[in-house]
């Protein structure tokens, strides 16, 4: 059975049987190559739900506020985020019905737009592994795998780690992939080069906080950047202000970030936000042998203390 039909069927059943109050999923977006988050409250509306390679948002973002019982359409990285949120007690396992979907990666429309060099896409049809793009001076078939989001290209957890229903068969995961290759390459550069590159990226920031707001783990009641008493950081777009925002945000999600890439996708200015978060993820793995969002049982490294924890970084 096709994935979309299966999602609609299970959504309908869950709502009919009153097992959940609503479903968080995706529906067709208003633009080509876009799907958009949707909230379905009655079985008769289950037909709105869809699934394709443009379902790029991390829907776990919407869980922390929720009090009701909810079913959520979740790909591999969304499920890892849900696990994190359960462990951080932002939502309970019982409250969430996970409609898990093995994922072959989501496509990055900006990469496609860059390839087209300004030609506008008015229609996009997805067929198995390809997408047909149409526009005023455009008819082109592209391979999905060549235009995946960066985070999808190095994903080693395409299949949901936990779920209450799994739609479709599991997909193969490339465990041999070196997901930290770019981080290591960056680390190998000189201090000055790294600072220059970091400064160039961060200088693009317009302080819209789309990265923070798209992140499932940015649920603080008051973010440090919003505090006015005391005002922890300046409000300007000077490099010192924007750099502090990005560095502190990266530290705050260390050991929690599952590299879903939501921050990267949300950024309108194309800042390579994963350069920071991926480094944090790698360090947590190296230092504490911990990978976020893989198990409901293991204890997050920054929520515990072991006498043999590495502490070379502590300056005496």
């Amino acid at each position, binding site marked *: 059975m096709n994935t979309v039909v299966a999602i609609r069927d299970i959504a309908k059943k869950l709502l009919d049987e009153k097992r959940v109050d609503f479903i968080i999923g995706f529906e067709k977006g208003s633009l080509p190559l876009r799907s958009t988050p949707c909230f379905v409250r009655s079985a008769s509306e289950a037909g709105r739900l869809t699934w394709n390679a443009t379902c790029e948002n991390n829907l776990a973002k919407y869980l922390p506020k929720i009090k009701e019982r909810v079913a959520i359409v979740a790909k591999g990285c969304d499920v890892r985020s849900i696990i994190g949120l359960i462990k951080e007690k932002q939502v309970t396992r019982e409250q969430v019905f996970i409609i898990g979907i093995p994922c072959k990666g989501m496509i990055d429309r900006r990469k496609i737009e860059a390839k087209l060099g*300004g030609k506008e896409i008015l229609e996009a049809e997805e067929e198995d592994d390809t997408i047909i793009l149409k526009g005023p001076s455009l008819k082109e078939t592209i391979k999905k795998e060549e235009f995946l989001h960066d985070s999808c290209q190095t994903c080693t957890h395409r299949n949901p780690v936990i779920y209450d229903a799994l739609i479709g068969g599991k997909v193969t995961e490339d465990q041999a992939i070196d997901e930290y290759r770019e981080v290591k390459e960056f680390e190998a550069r000189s201090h000055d080069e790294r600072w220059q590159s970091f400064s160039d990226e961060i200088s693009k920031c317009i302080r819209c*906080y*789309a990265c923070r*707001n798209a992140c499932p783990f940015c649920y603080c009641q*008051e973010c440090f950047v919003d505090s006015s008493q005391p005002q922890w950081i300046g*409000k300007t777009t000077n490099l010192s202000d924007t750099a502090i925002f990005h560095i502190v945000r990266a530290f705050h999600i260390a050991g929690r970030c599952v590299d879903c890439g939501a921050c990267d996708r949300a950024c309108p200015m194309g800042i390579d936000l994963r350069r920071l978060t991926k480094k944090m993820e790698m360090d947590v793995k190296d230092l504490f042998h911990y990978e976020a969002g893989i198990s409901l049982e293991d204890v997050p490294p920054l929520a515990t203390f072991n006498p043999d924890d590495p502490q070379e970084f502590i300056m005496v």
Partner: protein
Amino acid sequence: MKESEIAKTEVVNLLNTLIKEYRVFAPVEQNGFITFQEIHSGSEAFLDYINSKKPPKEIFFPQSERLFSYDLSREEGWGVEEPASEKKQRIIFGIRPCDARSLVLLDNVFDGKPYKDPYYTDKRKNTTIIALGCNHPGSTCFCTSLRGGPFSQEGSDLLLIDIGQKYILQVVTEKGEKITKKYNKFKEAEDHSLSLMQDTIKTAEASMKSKIDVQKITEKLGGIFDDPFWDLVSEKCLGCAVCTYLCPTCHCFDITDEVINQTGGRVRTWDSCAFPSFTLEASGVNPRPGNKERYRQRIMHKFDYFVANHGMAACVGCGRCIKECPVNLDIRVVLNSILNH
């Protein structure tokens, strides 16, 4: 006013001539997208584009602007310094008609009654706007629903229309007229050029598919302030400021003091109605506690309050918020659902 024409090959020379006398801002390609920046050579201008990522409003209303600085350690007094006002005349070249129109909307706020904002008006007064009509409006453009159009002259001093090998030049104001005197390669437009221009305008206008009855929306908004509709429409909003910061007409700002020991200053920075701290009061009460109230404010301000205050909607239909919203919350969809509500 009579139209003149100029060969496209002359544009670089024209810009080079203007650069000698003016600070010229033009679209340039940087980091994979278009931004308006000061250019120092005519060849830097990139005119084959749909629209810039960020609106050119920041040339008048920068995202961060220092209003004054002080130094209390000075013996001769407090040492308060205000930024020097811009002396050199400026030109924005190649701005789209929607963005040119957005300046007219902003004038209501910063150069209207009862307030005149010296930081804005100083820059506005000494800037000439040379707009470039849109032969190929984007699929997210809906300027014709907002009293604009791909070749609208409102807000421009000069309007260029691309007719293939040449640009037609429409002089809109005296300020614009002055520019035409600075360069001797403008010719009176040939009949053939004018007929090409008419065709170009017709084709571009016909290609605009998004049409929204904004007047009806304004009429409806007054009656639905407390409607549960807002809960549903705002549900997926992330509460970021992509839409407001990339909007050419959004103009809300914050003012903060920056103090380091004896020195400091006051800065004005963009702010957004999407942020929780935007309406947070000193008492701790927040009259707009959630997405619903904040998203409603965005729509109400643009299509109800601004209309009541200034007789026009605070939207020019540039489509940036549509293109860049991380969750595809499309303002056209929201406006249409208001109509159908």
